[in-house]
């Protein structure tokens, strides 16, 4: 079998497995017929969409399969900073200080999925919104900017998130 055909097959099976897992969680069905039907549906949707979800050029499983232990660390870390930022925004709404600014910085993450996750989590955390992600270059609207220095701004916004994401993916 040619390498490209094998890679397409792996992508189809992997994305189909994820769809099937989501379907299992959502339906909570236990009968064999329901499982077979769900599997058939998941594989059909996967056949139509695996090119979208798993990019052809990322031929490494660590580029899109997360390390489960670090996913747990990421969720705990993210939830903590998420609530801290939310309380800070509430303080600003009630009359506290703020210093809005658009900042630019780079990320060390390599995989598309990790970069997308970083951009998404930056937006998800109140106080920062990602405006653009171009290759490894991020443009962020920062509500509490205390520096215009690229690298420092990047370190403050990413707050260790990049390091954890680098262990979840690459």
């Amino acid at each position: 079998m040619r390498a490209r055909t094998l890679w397409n097959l792996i992508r189809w099976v992997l994305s189909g497995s994820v769809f099937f897992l989501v379907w299992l969680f959502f339906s909570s069905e236990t009968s064999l017929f329901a499982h077979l039907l769900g599997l058939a549906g998941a594989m059909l949707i996967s056949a139509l969409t695996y090119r979208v979800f798993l990019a052809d050029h990322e031929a490494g499983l660590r580029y899109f399969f997360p390390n489960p232990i670090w996913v747990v660390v990421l969720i705990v870390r993210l939830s903590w900073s998420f609530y801290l930022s939310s309380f800070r925004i509430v303080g600003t709404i009630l009359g506290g200080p703020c210093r809005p600014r658009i900042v630019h910085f780079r990320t060390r993450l390599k995989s598309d999925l990790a970069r997308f996750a970083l951009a998404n989590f930056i937006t998800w955390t109140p106080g920062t919104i990602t405006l653009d992600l171009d290759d490894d270059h991020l443009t962020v609207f920062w509500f509490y900017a205390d520096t215009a220095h690229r690298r420092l701004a990047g370190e403050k916004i990413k707050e260790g998130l990049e390091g954890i994401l680098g262990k979840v993916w690459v």
Partner: protein
Amino acid sequence: MNPILFWAREVLALLFFLFFLVFGLSGLLGLFRFPDPWSRLQASSVTSTTSVFSLLTALLLIAPSWAMASRILIIMAFFMISSPTGSHIIARFLWFSGLPHWMPEEKDKG
């Protein structure tokens, strides 16, 4: 269920329902208090993400069955993807439109 576990679960759920209420109301207040779309987007992100996430966490804690809990988990996962995407689209449009963001007076700065 162990009564201590039961009460701990109920109290935690109540705490997250309280967060839902506080962040939801603050976000709404921020929409009226902030002067421009950039900062209003920050207020609406508190409303949409923190309060809804708190609500879903509270519902997860008091879910009557594993089937229901798994559905709530899936909803949370989808929400974590879709909510920032919505905010990002609006912010990106603002950025490309060239609208300058609000700069608070010097005395307001922290």
